[in-house]
């Protein structure tokens, strides 16, 4: 288990922020770390029931929520968009 910095942009935020997660964290856990640090600070809380997904910047498809950082083939400071699933 090791620290892994990622760049995240939560839907509504003005720019990317850098968070540090554990490489054993799942994508869902990464999303939660980002939400805890950005929602209510720069972005208004999402409506109840909103499902948040993450994808690498510019990708079409979301990442598997149960995928771990270690297995995601990320490079350090990989950029992830975190957005509300429609």
């Amino acid at each position, binding site marked *: 288990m090791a620290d892994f*910095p990622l*760049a*995240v*942009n939560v*839907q*509504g*935020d*003005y*720019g*990317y*922020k*850098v*968070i540090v997660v554990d490489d054993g964290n799942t994508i869902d856990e990464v999303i939660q770390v*980002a939400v805890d*640090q*950005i929602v*209510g*600070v*720069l*972005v*208004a809380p999402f409506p109840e029931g909103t499902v948040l997904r993450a994808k690498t*910047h*510019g990708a079409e498809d979301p990442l598997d929520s149960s995928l771990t950082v270690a297995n995601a083939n990320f*490079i*350090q*400071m*990989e*950029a992830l*968009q975190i*957005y509300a699933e429609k």
Partner: protein
Amino acid sequence: MALLKMEEWYDLARETNWTPKYVSEEQLFPAPMSDDHGIPIEAWENFDEPYKSTYRDYVNAQRDKDVGAYSVKAALARADFFKNASPHWKALLALHFSAVCWAEFHSASAFARMTRFSRSPGMRNMATFGTLDEIRHGQIQIYFAYEFLKHDAVFDWCHKSSKTENWIIISLRHALDDIAHTRDATSAAIMLNMGLELAFTNLQFVALSADAAKCGDHSFATMLQSIQSDEARHAQIGEPMVRIMVENGKKKEAQQMVEIAFWRMWKQFSALSGIGMDYYTPLEHRENSLKDFMEEWVIGQFGRTMQALGLDLPWYWDILKEDISSFHHANQIGVYVYRATEWWRPIASTSPAEREWLEEKYPGWNETYGKCWDVISENIRNGDYEKTTPIAPPLICNMCGLEVVGTAGEKWHPVDHHVDIDDRRYHFCSEPCKWIFELEPARYKGHASIIDRVFDGTIGPEPDDFYNYMGQSPAERGTDGYEYRWVDGYDQDQNETEEEKLYATG
């Protein structure tokens, strides 16, 4: 003894050149310092500056300018202007002086290189005056700023800032080192004069001078006008240089130099002048927005100048037209929420009336950047001041050194461009920043942004390590210039006495 008229001897004197006997041309003008781009000396000797001056005329003119500027300052010295100035204006003065003073003084080095190593004798002549100009600009601005030291220790940063590793200073120093201080005399002349001085100094010095006069800061206004008159003269060095390059088959090289320098300096001025004009200038004294000014004087006038010189409009011109409505708004949010990382007292400048102005000048501001300010404002109303600063630091562009930002709110559009080299990810805020990096990766890849330095262990893990690294003692970490009393309008507290009220006026 009768003196000859200037026009009788000027061209002879400024074109005087010589053929070295004791060393070779290459030893006298080594390529890393001079770089003639293979253009013959006869072409370089055709350098012809539009505004001509003799040393005698220069000394007389500069003396008159100094008398003008310093006498206005002396006359106003007893006025309590600074004490009575709003936090808006104080923030603007602190930002201007601490960013600009040393940058001007450092430019003297670039002009001195041109003085010694330019292949054109006429340019060596003009660059001599440019060197003296920049020494003057460093001195006069530090002198004017130091008047405020007795009121506010932040003005110590006018001298101190360039010697720190503050993230904003890293950004500015990197840009100026890239275009002026690590280039041969020819490239520095084109990049500094065209890409910075001709393109942008009007923004910071003429527009700001007008705003300063409206705010009643006549000392600052006069100083800025005085400086800009020098810029108008020595910025002209770039145009004849570009002409010589274009006429001698080096258009592509000149084009690239201008494109690199212009974009690098656009990023700096979007932060300095963009935040200055659209946020720090008190509302009732604002005239043009950054966008207004950029559209007329840069996209319009500078664009035409480039074409008149035989260059093309930069390939990223359409990107620039979008950037002037977005980049500085996003960076203003970052400058505010990460205010402890700045040495002055940043202001939000997003009271209801100011938001109306921003919406008028930038339609859609409220549904985009305004949405972030809604959350910040609500936290302030609830007394949750700690929540107005994110725990997560921002991602920093590995070229311009500012935040990697996109569009916020209801039109959310994240922006990120990247390059991977040797298992390291480099991030960029824009295609042009990435393009500059990719032109010469070896030149840029060794540089670490402030965030890189956090994660590569250069900066220790504790919060104080970060501020100490940036040269900020606890007293030098920015706080809200209005102490949060802007959120529902500056006149919200009707029970305050006149002395306690903080008006958003000059």
